[in-house]
């Protein structure tokens, strides 16, 4: 399983994260822009996707905040008073900074590491673009950057034309070290993106869920808040208004590493039988 903040010993800080409350998201995309500006991320394509107001598409190496838009013929509230029959869900998606992070577990170079804040960060001077973390993430967050590199340019010998490394949200590690909140949280005008100590955020989220239930919000639920879920709870977790898959999120994600022990054991058995099997071909029909 992934290493934790404890490894930082005295340098360990309180674990921080995001609580993204989609019930107050106005879909302004200030988070997307602030993130790109602060982190000097390249623009990744002027493509009209015709997916409601989402022309960004997904999280990837060049998009670390992605606002999803879902139009539904469903009321926002179930308690009837003044209810309109349409609603428009908006959600700012981000890397979940999982407690048990598959990307971190599978990274072969040690590039991905857990910071003193409990966040998961890629060291871009180490990443060699093996791409293993990409399919390991149960949320499809990470991706390789195919655009030309803007930093640490590849050498002429053995180097490729594209950046080739994997990039993702760092929870603005540099800003955290400077005592600031991440760029997206700062830019969000309605406090949909809330940053702070994870414990505090969880408490706040629980209270928020209760309030929304009292107000009759249709489908209100917290996602990745529970430390007992398949990834140990998200460092970034959400208040959603419908099932996760409606937003493109997996309904019951489990970190792949949770089965790794059994996988190694199984492999050991297979390897043994493999060896024996090869030897066995000599025993059978040895008249040849």
């Amino acid at each position, binding site marked *: 399983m992934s290493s934790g903040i404890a490894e930082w010993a005295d340098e360990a800080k309180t674990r921080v994260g995001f609580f993204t409350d989609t019930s107050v998201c106005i879909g302004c995309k200030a988070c997307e822009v602030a993130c790109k500006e602060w982190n000097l991320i390249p623009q990744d394509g002027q493509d009209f996707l015709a997916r409601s107001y989402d022309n960004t598409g997904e999280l990837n190496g060049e998009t670390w905040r992605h606002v999803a838009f879902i139009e539904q013929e469903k009321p926002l509230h179930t308690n009837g008073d003044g209810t309109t029959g349409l609603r428009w869900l908006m959600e700012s998606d981000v890397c979940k900074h999982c407690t048990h992070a598959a990307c971190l577990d*599978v990274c*072969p170079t040690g590039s991905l590491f857990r910071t003193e804040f409990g966040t998961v960060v890629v060291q871009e001077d180490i*990443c060699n673009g093996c791409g293993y973390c990409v399919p390991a993430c149960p949320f499809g967050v990470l991706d390789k950057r195919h655009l030309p590199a803007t930093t640490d340019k590849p050498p002429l010998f053995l180097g490729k034309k594209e950046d080739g490394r994997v990039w993702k949200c760092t929870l603005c590690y540099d800003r955290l070290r400077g005592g600031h909140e991440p760029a997206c949280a700062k830019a969000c005008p309605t406090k949909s993106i809330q940053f702070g100590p994870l414990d505090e955020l969880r408490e706040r989220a629980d209270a928020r869920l209760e309030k929304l*239930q009292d107000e009759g919000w249709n489908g209100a639920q917290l996602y990745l808040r529970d430390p*007992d879920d398949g990834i140990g709870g998200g460092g970034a977790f959400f208040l959603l208004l419908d099932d996760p898959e409606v937003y493109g999120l997996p309904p019951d994600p489990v970190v792949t590493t949770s089965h790794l022990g059994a*996988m190694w054991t199984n492999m050991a058995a297979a*390897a043994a039988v493999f060896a024996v099997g090869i030897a066995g071909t000599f025993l059978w029909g040895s008249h040849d």
Partner: protein
Amino acid sequence: MTDGVRSYYGHPVIKEPTWTWEIPCYFFTGGLAGASAVLSTASKLFGNEKLSRVALYVGATADAVSPGLLISDLGRPERFHHMLRVFKVTSPMNVGSWVLLVSGGASSTQALLELLGVLKPVKIAAEVASTVFGPPLATYTGVLIADTAVPVWHEARRELPWLFGASAAASAGAAACVFLDPADAGPARRLAIGGVAAEGGLMRAMELRLGEVGEVYQYGAAGSFARAAKGLAGAGAALLALRGRRSRAAAVVGGALVCAGELCLRWSVYKAGIQSARDPKYTVQPQRERASRNGGSKATTLPAARTGSAG
């Protein structure tokens, strides 16, 4: 919505691997190398020197080609050595890099020293190393791909190392048949035929157990490669079985067909992974079903159930 499964405009939930053609080819060459190492040593122990040497050179070549394939796939090939910055058990790719390093180093050393005929103790040490690391080399890639979120891989985590092992064994036997006089190639032939049979049986078992996500092996590139694998490997095995003992030509063709088939097998698994990653239903549906069975997923916290009419 595809097939009653809700999704975000049919967009994938996870990301498909960014790996390119080198990787499924590496699955083949790595498996070939690992199995050949074991075949070489077993042959020697059972007194078949010719087979031993062929298997050694085949394996060493495969071992030499493998790192090149892997490095070529990297986004930053010039940083390939970063694989060895750490030793990390949670990363099958890291473990595998070490395994390949040792196995590759050992098999090339052994082959070189065999050719030059010097430093026998070193050669023996190398042989031991490559033999011990052979089985892991041939089977760890099954763990590597299963240790992801890719549905058709992760759900087949029990079968994949066995499948890859069987495929590797078949490839090693078949490759040896190509370069060896049929008179000496008996065990190789049996290994190829047995390997193909085992691989075929394991494929079937895997597809059956996979349920809906297993359907990716029926269509698209995965389907084409899977059918090609069966056809080519099956034809090759048949040829080896029926004619391989008597005809050198049949042995060569049969061996080559089996190798081609096993290469296709690796490609079908690779493509299946990509296909299962692309369609959100393969990620969402099993998870939804699991959640229902468990009375809800812990990933979702619903508001507390209210009793009574207040609120």
